[in-house]
């Protein structure tokens, strides 16, 4: 057995060598444990193949004014809608102050192509696919889209007007390759 004086040998500022080793060892083990948790959490994030941003090309030549089609990008539904002049006028007539998520139709379409409204078909509430893209579906109180899950109404610029959704339907990144072909992604 080491005597008290031996254990305390070399102590000048009240810190024992053993205390330092103890704290250092536990801290190091703690850092190591946290470092191991990171990959275990990160494995749940979207994997490389899911992330690989596929681009989708769409031929929009067949979409008549007033019609819309439903396609998909990154496994999410996309609505491509050919607005008629009346719908554009309706969207423009709304004061921005009345909107929950204020955006003009010009901000939501490409310059000179404001009849082409391209949005994700994912309700910003809880992710259902709103109705209104296909012929004869309920377009809601504002003539755009209607989400039947929890009753969100979108207008002719796919902006949220009524119901629980907080945001307008998302406009994905896209470019016009030509007048009739669009690349999304």
């Amino acid at each position, binding site marked *: 057995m080491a005597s008290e004086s031996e254990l305390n040998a070399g102590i000048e500022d009240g810190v024992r060598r053993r205390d330092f080793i103890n704290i250092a060892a536990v801290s190091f083990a703690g850092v190591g444990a946290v470092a191991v948790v990171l990959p275990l959490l990160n494995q749940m994030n979207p994997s490389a193949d*899911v992330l690989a941003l596929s681009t989708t090309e769409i031929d929009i030549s067949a979409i008549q004014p007033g019609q819309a089609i439903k396609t*998909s990008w990154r496994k*999410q539904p996309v609505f491509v809608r050919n607005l008629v002049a009346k719908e554009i006028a309706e969207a423009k007539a709304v004061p921005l102050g009345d909107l929950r998520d204020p955006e003009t139709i010009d901000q939501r379409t490409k310059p000179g192509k404001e009849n082409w409204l391209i949005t994700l078909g994912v309700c910003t509430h*809880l992710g259902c696919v709103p109705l209104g893209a296909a012929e004869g579906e309920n377009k809601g109180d504002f003539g755009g889209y209607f989400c*039947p899950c929890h009753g969100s109404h979108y207008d002719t610029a796919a902006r949220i007007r009524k119901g629980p959704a907080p945001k307008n339907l998302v406009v994905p990144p896209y470019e016009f390759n030509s007048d009739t072909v669009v690349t999304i992604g």
Partner: protein
Amino acid sequence: MSFPWAKPYEPTHPLMKWMDEKLPIPRLVYNATGPGYPVPRNLNYFWNFGVLAGAALMIQIITGIVLAMHYAANASVAFNSVEHIMRDVNAGWFIRYAHMNGASMFFIVVYLHIFRGLYYGSYKAPREMVWLLGVVIFLLMMATAFMGYVLPWGQMSFWGAQVITGFFSAIPIVGEPVREWLLGGFVPDNATLNRFFSLHYLLPFVILGVIILHIWALHIPGSSNPTGIEVKDEQDTVPFHPYYTAKDGFGVGIFLLIFVALTFFSPNTLGHADNYIPANSLSTPAHIVPEWYFLPFYAILKAFTFNFLWIDAKLWGVIAMFASIALLFFLPWLDSSPIKSSNYRPLYRIFFWILVVDVLLLGWCGMQPAEQPWVILSQLGAIYYFAHFLVILPIVSRIERPLPMPNSITEAVLAKHATDTSSASATA
């Protein structure tokens, strides 16, 4: 711990003595569910539901392990593998229907167990920890049931996953990344299905672990009882075995009768026909609703259709829905009345039954489309739900004058016995 008069475990057989020295499991069982565990003599049939919930969990674990031998957790084949179980696997239809309806039965008995606790004040001191662990079990059950419902990869599975993971996207700033992290993608897909299967297999065993803690915490003060008066001496109790093993055994029999009746004669009544359509990420079913056991909470979620203060409707809905369950963690401290049993609480008893009706109303509203009058009814129902716990309960527990109480469990039992015999002789 147990009462001082608990019968001690005294093994006589040499093998049992040997076992008791090495690994005293028989002692544990004897003292937990055997003659060594004294229980109040006056428990009614509402005290069966803990054992019934345990039985339901075991049925789910056994049928689930068997189903996992035939199921394939891959988005391209999951739906077909469930149909394979239903059509090709020997007795597969029975095992799957038992698992499907077993989940409903589990929730039915757990809801009755919870409302028993609410009526008889089982959450009060000294049993707060029992209640808190119970709420944890309830949350784990909800997570497990939700993930299990996703596995068949039908339309309701897919859109249920989409909507429920969508709750997390309501969180400001980090919401969308959290949702993508949960899903492992931008929409529910193979990664989602795989992880849900993994967790759906894991969580029942976590539930089992928390149940052991729940029972451990219960066995420290011992069971509550319909009078809410604590056990005072030996004449207030009877040994768990054979008295309550028999009573619980009878309850399990009734439970199984209802369970098999549902499984054999009406297996799809509590499900949704849409879940027999394979998942389609481009088309939402016209009317999506969760499983019945989530409906009251779903109604609270849907009740928020407007922005309020600086928080948007979507976040309010999600906050309210989670808060409606989180609130239960605070119940032991919201109700300050020292009287446990509603039998002696004339005022609380009324509000208890209003709460029952309110939860049923919310459940009904949760089933309906997001239209009037259901929206306003959900809103009123949700307001009442929160008011019950946050306003009514604290006030009632302060102003209420309890009814006269007997001095002991035995006195209550004998008084009841006396009235029963006197009224019997009066009518004779």
